[in-house]
């Protein structure tokens, strides 16, 4: 089962620069939540605070709470490593490990905990994950080739396979389809639909059709002006968001009249 995330009064800083201000959002378990909004409004930034990836940037820090199933991720006694295991992430740009084969890339996360994993278990897992990412047929004959030998779209699907292979509770995706063609995109969307039975999904997307297709809830982020902090403007279930938004900015943005 997936887990819910509650963000309370979150401010996010890069050094002294307040990038995102006072975010409050409740992300339901086993649902797909989409983040939309104009470029630079802080979608990626907020997403990365949900598994403490944010902390990897020197000087970046967070005020407020992020509760994963009621437990604050930012409590002193919480280990960011286990947070990131439970909350998987797929990035905007494909990033397979360049020295590893396709197979090893998929297994990379699992190997961290299970040094000795039987060959057949590994084979099954690799096949499962690659099928899920709609990549199996393209690569099944060259699983031992390096992962970076693939085209951009294939690489991204490999990264998705890698992320789901560790079977996280929440999966965060930062524009996972921006480098994919429509067919791969559809396959990933199918995968997301399938995954939400078991996991909570948060996805950043620029493609509003995509948000409309797959998300149960949609969060619209905005920023007042360049240089100002971004903020969560409007949060609603997807049907409301796209059909009958109760927020003027959101409506303008969705209808493409924005800016």
């Amino acid at each position, binding site marked *: 089962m997936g887990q819910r995330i509650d963000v309370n009064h979150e401010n996010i800083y890069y050094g002294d620069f307040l990038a995102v201000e006072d975010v409050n959002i409740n992300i339901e378990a086993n649902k797909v939540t989409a983040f939309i909004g104009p470029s630079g409004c802080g979608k990626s930034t907020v997403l990365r605070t949900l598994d403490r990836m944010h902390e990897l940037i020197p000087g970046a820090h967070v005020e407020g709470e992020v509760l994963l199933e009621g437990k604050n991720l930012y409590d002193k006694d919480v280990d960011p490593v*286990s947070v990131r*295991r439970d909350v998987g992430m797929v990035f905007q740009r494909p990033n397979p490990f360049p020295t590893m084969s396709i197979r090893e890339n998929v297994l990379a996360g*699992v190997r961290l*905990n*299970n040094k000795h994993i039987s060959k057949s278990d590994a084979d099954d*897992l690799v096949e*499962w994950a690659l*099928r*899920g990412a709609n990549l199996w047929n393209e690569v099944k004959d060259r699983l031992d080739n390096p992962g970076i030998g693939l085209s951009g779209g294939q690489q991204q699907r490999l990264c998705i396979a890698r992320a789901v292979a560790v*079977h996280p509770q929440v999966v965060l995706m930062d524009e996972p389809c921006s480098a994919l063609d429509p067919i791969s995109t559809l396959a990933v969307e199918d995968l997301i639909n399938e995954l939400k039975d078991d996991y909570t999904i948060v996805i950043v997307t620029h493609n509003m059709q995509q948000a409309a297709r797959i998300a149960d809830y949609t969060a619209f982020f905005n920023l007042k002006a360049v240089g100002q902090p971004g903020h969560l403007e409007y949060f609603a279930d997807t049907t409301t968001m796209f059909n009958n938004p109760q927020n003027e900015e959101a409506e303008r943005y969705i209808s493409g009249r924005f800016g």
Partner: protein
Amino acid sequence: MDGAPVIDFDKFRPTRSSEQYRKGKDYFMSGLIALAFVIACIPLVSVLWTTIVNGFKRLNLNFLTYNMTGVVGGNPTPSGGYGGVLHAIIGTLEITGGAMLISIPIGIMCAVYLVEYAHGGKLAMTVSLLVDVMSGIPSIVAGLFAFSMFTIVFGPGTINGFEGSVALSLLMLPTVVKSCEEMLKIVPNDLREASLALGVTKQRTITKIVLRTALPGIVSGCILAIARVIGETAPLLMTAGYIASTNVNLFAGQMTTLPVYVYQEYSKLSANCPANATAACVPTIPMERAWAAALVLIVVVLVLNLIGRLVAKIFAVKTER
């Protein structure tokens, strides 16, 4: 999904012990890494400390502004000092400067050839391999090479500063090539493509984008290369020689460099003070001069480093041409 195997994910869940183990290992490795640092610091601090403590005794203005002419035994000179390193500082700067002028342009262009033009062809593989081999040339062999070259071309017994520069440039060259090569390789291909796509010639792409982007790395690589050779002793003993007075002509006459000076003073070990000598006669003066010169050498290196860094900074500032 059709045909996908069913996976029992519980099998892969982390167990408490595996988590414990991983965490432990992480701590352990962090500890080792910090320890590595501490271990390395012991000799490093000791070297610096010894040099500074011993060097400070005799390091004064007099030491920096006089050479070794007219210095006899442990007696003070008329100027009140005990000889100095002016000639060695001048020699070091000139000889190293000569080596830089030879090897940095060649080294950078060779790296440009390897990274930008050769695309891993046969010749490039050979050149690259030979650069690695060259970096293994023992400094003493470089000295013998320069010595023989000059004695063949300019007659037997030729000894001058430039000969030392040639020996040093042989040692610098591979370091310069290797570090420039690494730095050029790191420049993302995207940038070359972006520039070429603007219809910029390859030469301008290389000089204005690639080299420019890699510049801080190249500068620091060249500094390391200079640092590598500025302290060479063995090859200079045979090529540049040793002289007590100041020689500013790189192309004629012997030249003393700081490392050679340090070594010569160390070899003297102590100076004689005759029975009738005054209290001003210092028998341990050669060793003291050796340490003081060693300290000067380190300071010279430090200053060069600073200059290098400043240059890197100035170049990093955007210029509106």
